[in-house]
């Protein structure tokens, strides 16, 4: 049995969702190859070659692949699918965008966002916003699976697999027009050790930037937000944590002015330590928080900043 892992990357950097997906793949087989889709992504392929346990790295490049166009991504994977028994794709928005296409073309049932490999044909995945865990056994000979990175440890680095070039693919009837990426020097939300998130309580984008961002910077944290904060324009869409946003599992998650709706919890309840700052002592977030401050964030956050300074942070 051979497994193909599609790398999580932005043409310049390999993201650690790849390492985590390799860990899931190694539970299925010791023959694990990594496919890098991108443009000008040689450095990404070289980085993937260092992941321990990887047999070889395949690099497919084209303009459409560089822009993450799903039609091209699926075609590039399909061109190689004959050599593999399972295709594992990190469950990022980009991965979820093309994985089902691969499954449809192969006439197999995709298995979305697995959190556990039970055996070679049996996997566990969350459903209903993480309120239930379903274990499914597939009867398809070939498997197309997306992997929730936070559920697996990252594979180590130390290998030196060969890198081969394979053919790229084009976008067909879809044209890339433009992109508007949020620029930030902070750690990436999905991989950060600490996440500070703000909710509707912030009331404005200015307040969000004034309250949440300095605290995040003091902690070297990534910034997250609730859907309500994103909908209201306080934070960019890319910050949304939850059932239909990003799933995070940092060592420390600090929720400020977030009530704790199940859709939000779905994206952060596997964090190691959860802190909630909320003025309503009955807010559902306190039912899962390890430490809570029942307080107005307007006084609590400055006090927290001072306490961190006093503690040498």
């Amino acid at each position, binding site marked *: 049995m051979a497994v193909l892992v599609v790398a999580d990357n932005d043409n310049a950097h390999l993201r650690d969702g790849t390492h985590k997906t390799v860990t899931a793949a190694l539970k299925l087989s010791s023959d694990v190859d990594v496919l890098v889709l991108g443009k000008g992504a040689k450095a990404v392929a070289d980085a993937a070659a260092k992941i321990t346990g990887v047999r070889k790295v395949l690099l497919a490049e084209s303009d459409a692949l560089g822009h993450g166009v799903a039609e091209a991504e699926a075609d590039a994977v399909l061109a190689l699918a004959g050599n593999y028994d399972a295709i594992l794709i990190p469950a990022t928005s980009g991965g979820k965008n093309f994985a089902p296409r691969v499954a449809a073309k192969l006439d197999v049932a995709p298995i979305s966002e697995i959190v556990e490999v039970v055996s070679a044909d049996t996997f566990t995945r969350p459903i209903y916003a993480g309120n*239930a865990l379903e274990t499914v056994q597939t009867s398809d000979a070939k498997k197309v699976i997306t992997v929730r990175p936070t559920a697996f440890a990252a594979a180590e680095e130390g290998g030196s697999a060969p890198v081969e070039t394979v053919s790229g693919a084009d976008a067909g009837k879809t044209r890339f027009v433009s992109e508007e990426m949020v620029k930030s020097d902070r750690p990436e939300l999905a991989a950060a050790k600490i996440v500070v998130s703000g909710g509707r309580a912030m009331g404005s984008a200015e307040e969000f930037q004034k309250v949440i961002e300095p605290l995040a910077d003091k902690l070297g944290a990534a910034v997250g937000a609730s859907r309500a904060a994103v909908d209201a324009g306080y934070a960019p869409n890319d910050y949304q944590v939850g059932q239909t946003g990003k799933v995070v599992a940092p060592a*420390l998650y600090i929720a400020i002015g977030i009530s704790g709706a199940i859709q939000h919890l779905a994206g952060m309840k596997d964090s190691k330590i959860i802190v909630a700052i909320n003025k309503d002592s009955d807010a559902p977030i306190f039912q899962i928080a390890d430490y809570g401050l029942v307080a107005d964030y307007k006084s609590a956050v400055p006090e927290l900043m001072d306490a961190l300074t006093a503690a040498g942070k």
Partner: protein
Amino acid sequence: MKVLVPVKRVIDYNVKVRVKPDQTGVDLANVKMSMNPFCEIAVEEAVRLKEKGVATEVVIVSIGPQQAQETIRTALAMGGDRGVLIVTDIDPEPLAVAKLLAAVVAEEQPNLVLMGKQAIDGDNNAVGQMLSALLGWPQATYASAIEVSGSTAKVTREVDGGLQTLDVDLPAVVTADLRLNEPRYASLPNIMKAKKKEIAQKTVADYGVDVAPRLKVLKVVEPAKRSAGIKLETAADLVSKLKTAGVL
């Protein structure tokens, strides 16, 4: 331009989900069911396209139990023109749904399929992409803005890192994200009017699609519960706890 909107009847997003003690699934007896919120957003967008004079007809389709008719009625009350209900007792997997929808597309010949990005029961986030692949139509998922002009559509998408804009040839499949619009509430007169709109009743056999499940559900369990922690008095207490826990 004809727009097809597939909608799914799911457990209402406000309901606290309970896993059945025998681990066979989630308890759906006597719980409130509603239209999947992302499908509501898709219906709203289709109706707005009609109001703008871009779309001429909005056809709603649902695959599910007989009660999914109510879900279609809700969409018709929001402004859809007519419905198609494909009745089935099983909750079909995304592959089967995509195949059935491809058969409906062959029959209806829409210029655009506008649907939800994800159904909040199975959280698969798959059918739109699969339908696009089966039809060989372009896809634009996670849409936060759609602009149709002539034979193409410009779609702004919510992606990791920010926003991306694609231009797709029509016909195409577009899936809705949360920021696309805010769905309207149907007015009483429109609810009354919707009662008279046509809903065609179909069966899976009418389309000759194999809907046999590929996945066997071995068990459904509740995730490990997190217990509530402690409430602290001061920010300084919090910092000292976090230091002790080794996360600072």
